[in-house]
């Protein structure tokens, strides 16, 4: 195991996992001195019946200080300030965030406002603005994907000013993340596939990008193994409880890995496709993952070869000669995308031209690729990619990923 000249690693969130982990929330809150939580969620989560499961599990142990289900798909400053008021009016003393990235980010924003007894979140932007522990925050993720339940960032949008603010502080880490299989059980197959591939991408990029370290490595290794063993099965059999729990744990491990090692080209281009075309993040990740591996392989062949073990298991690993293990990894990721495509009746996209928006129009029109390639130059994720990238490189990768053909490795400029 490689010990870098210098590294940092931190995951101070307490993880509580199980098929009945929700029931532990009251005693976990009590251990933090809290007994009246505000539940923050969105309409989708509430509509799927998940809030009822949460309240049934905890209402005998705590007084619920309110349920707010109006978090929009993109976190919104106005909603943050409004929920903070609700928290204060109802004399709550903790927050339970039930949902995906936007809900958890919103809850982190609310927590800043209520802990500092302020009226506006924006007073706390900038490094070092947070100086002490906030109110207890419990995150209950409902998508096994983003990893926001273990990260210290909150991205809040000021819709009026069209500005995204990223708050970063150790004090923003949830105190506790509760991973319960019931929270992802009703996720439709294509979302299961997409969010699962999002998590797998976090872990794989964490394992081969520049800022990897021993603990991000072992978290990533475990995440990859758990996700690859279960993703296809839970997509086909949504009721597989153990598989659901393994995916949720895998996604958190992947979140721990990538938030401590940073990510590279796949996230770099994926963020840009998302911001230019509005394409879901998870779809971009699953499409771009094989290309990130191909593009960087000449620099990271050893690391990528090691990935064959958690992806395919020892029986496959030992039969593949060492010098082609990394290529096998790429082939298996493509096969996995293909299998997920089949298992979701074609809804899991394998290349950008296959993604349609809600009106059935192409989500990523080919003529937008130059804009995406340019936008990617401004995204910080490229810093940690093993091989350098410029506009031409970005465009080459995007075009191959649009068409769904392997990268022409002779065109990669090896720096």
């Amino acid at each position, binding site marked *: *195991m490689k*010990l*870098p*000249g*210098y*590294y*940092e*690693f*931190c*995951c*101070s969130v*307490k*993880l*509580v*996992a*199980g*098929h*009945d*982990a929700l029931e*532990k929330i009251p005693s976990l809150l009590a*251990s*933090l*001195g809290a007994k009246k939580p505000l539940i923050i969620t969105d309409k989708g989560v509430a509509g799927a019946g998940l809030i009822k499961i949460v309240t049934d599990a905890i209402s005998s142990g705590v007084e619920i200080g309110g349920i707010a289900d109006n978090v929009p798909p993109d976190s919104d400053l106005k909603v943050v300030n409004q929920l903070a008021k609700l928290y204060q009016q109802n004399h709550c003393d903790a927050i339970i965030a039930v949902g995906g990235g936007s809900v958890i980010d919103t809850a982190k924003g609310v927590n800043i406002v209520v802990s500092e007894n302020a009226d506006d979140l924006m007073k706390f932007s900038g490094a*070092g603005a947070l*100086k*002490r*522990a906030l109110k207890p925050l419990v995150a209950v993720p409902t998508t096994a994907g983003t990893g926001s339940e273990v990260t210290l960032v909150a991205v809040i949008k000021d819709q009026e000013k069209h500005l995204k603010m990223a708050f970063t*502080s*150790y004090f923003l880490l949830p105190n506790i993340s509760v991973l319960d299989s019931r929270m992802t059980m009703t996720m439709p197959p294509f979302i299961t596939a997409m969010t699962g591939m999002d998590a797998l991408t976090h872990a794989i990029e964490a394992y081969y990008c520049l800022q990897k*370290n*021993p*603990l991000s*490595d*072992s*978290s990533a*290794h*475990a*995440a990859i193994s*758990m996700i690859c063993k279960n993703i296809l099965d839970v997509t086909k059999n949504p009721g597989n409880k*153990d598989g659901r*729990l*393994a995916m949720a*744990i*895998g996604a958190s*491990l992947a979140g721990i890995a990538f938030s401590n090692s940073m990510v590279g080209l796949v996230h770099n281009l994926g963020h840009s496709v998302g911001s230019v075309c509005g394409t879901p993040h998870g779809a971009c990740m699953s499409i771009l993952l094989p290309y990130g591996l191909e593009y960087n392989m000449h620099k990271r062949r050893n690391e990528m070869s*090691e990935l064959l*073990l958690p992806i395919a298991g*020892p*029986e496959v*690993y*030992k039969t593949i000669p*060492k010098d082609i293990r990394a290529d096998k990894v790429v082939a298996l990721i493509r096969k996995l995308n293909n299998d997920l495509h089949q298992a979701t009746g074609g809804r899991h996209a394998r290349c950008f031209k296959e993604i349609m928006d809600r009106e059935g129009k192409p989500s990523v029109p080919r003529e937008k690729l130059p804009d995406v390639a340019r936008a990617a130059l401004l995204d910080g994720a490229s810093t940690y990619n093993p091989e350098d990238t410029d506009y031409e490189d970005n465009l080459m990768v995007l075009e191959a990923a649009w068409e769904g053909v392997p990268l022409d490795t002779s065109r990669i400029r090896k720096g």
Partner: protein
Amino acid sequence: MNLSNSFEFTCPTKTNSGNRALENIPVELESLDARKPLVITGTDIVDQQLIDIFLGAFGNSGMTLGIFDSIGKNADSSMIEQLKKAYIDEKFDSIIALGGGPVMDAAKSLNIMVSLPTADLRNSSATSLIQKPLRPLVYVPADTATGLETSKFASINGATLSSHYFMPNLVIIDPRMTRVKNGKAVFANTLAAFCRALEAYTGQDKNPLTDSYAFAAIQFICENFLTLLATPGDSKAGLAIANAMAMSGCAFSNVEAGMLHRIAQALPARINAQSGIVMSVCLPHVFAYCGKKSGYFIAEALLPLAGHDEYAAVPAKQRLEKTLKVIGQFLTELSVKGPERIPASLTEAGIESSMIDDILSNLKLDQDTQMNADDFRAVLESACEGRPVA
């Protein structure tokens, strides 16, 4: 791993490891809202030269430090009372423990006392009063680390207190501090960390997070321990071993003590059971026994012990046998090349088989559902004779 079992995992500790890690302390303290740390160390434990390097790292940070350098071989309560008074009178806002063992025990105790002024540490349930994080605690290991500094345990007045709140906010592993001078202590302490990590990785209540820490710890020890014994000044190997020690404490804090640790704790005090030497004597016997029971994951340890290729090359059915063989060979090599020999049996270490009944009575077996007295007896008998478990 059986996912039908639920688990909880917590490790509040951030790790900064590597070149010039010490220089990051002021920034890290600031992000924890601390600006005036009290440094606790002991000149018996840490060389004055290292204390000077440490202080030099604060260079032009503008931070005011208090330094208490008189921690001896054990942390006692009167000294901690004295520290508490100084901490409160001088308005310190954080604690840095420089060096291992009793230094960190004192720092953990002090942290409870200044965060919860009413706590009485003579009462072992004092930790149950803690409901929120204590003051920021930074741990800087030197070569006298035991590996338990990052754990949830603190040894105070001969008793062991336990709370996740004892775990430091930050561990700063800097190669200037971890360069090995005291080879004998490092040998025993690294063996203990190895046993701790292996037991966490193979035990019934392991989880994917304890696996992460234990996996990295085992690999670092396997890859660097012999190098360190051959070249004690090797700063890279010293850094890797210091990392492994810190990781082992974290993994160990999130699992129940397994058979190996329970045996070690039940041995007569004069054996110095925590030293790692005696645990290493028992390790092959405990693992051979547990490997035949269901619910243990001994065979899986082959991956961190031997690496990807060797793990995959061994058929699943032969993995247990291979794991035991690799551990046996590693211990034999360590025994030959280390500063002291690892005894071949418990008897050689001073435990006669006639003492087994006494040891069993120390074990509080009524609480144990997994292993009964016969199980422990079988392992102890085999460890006394020094032969593999039949």
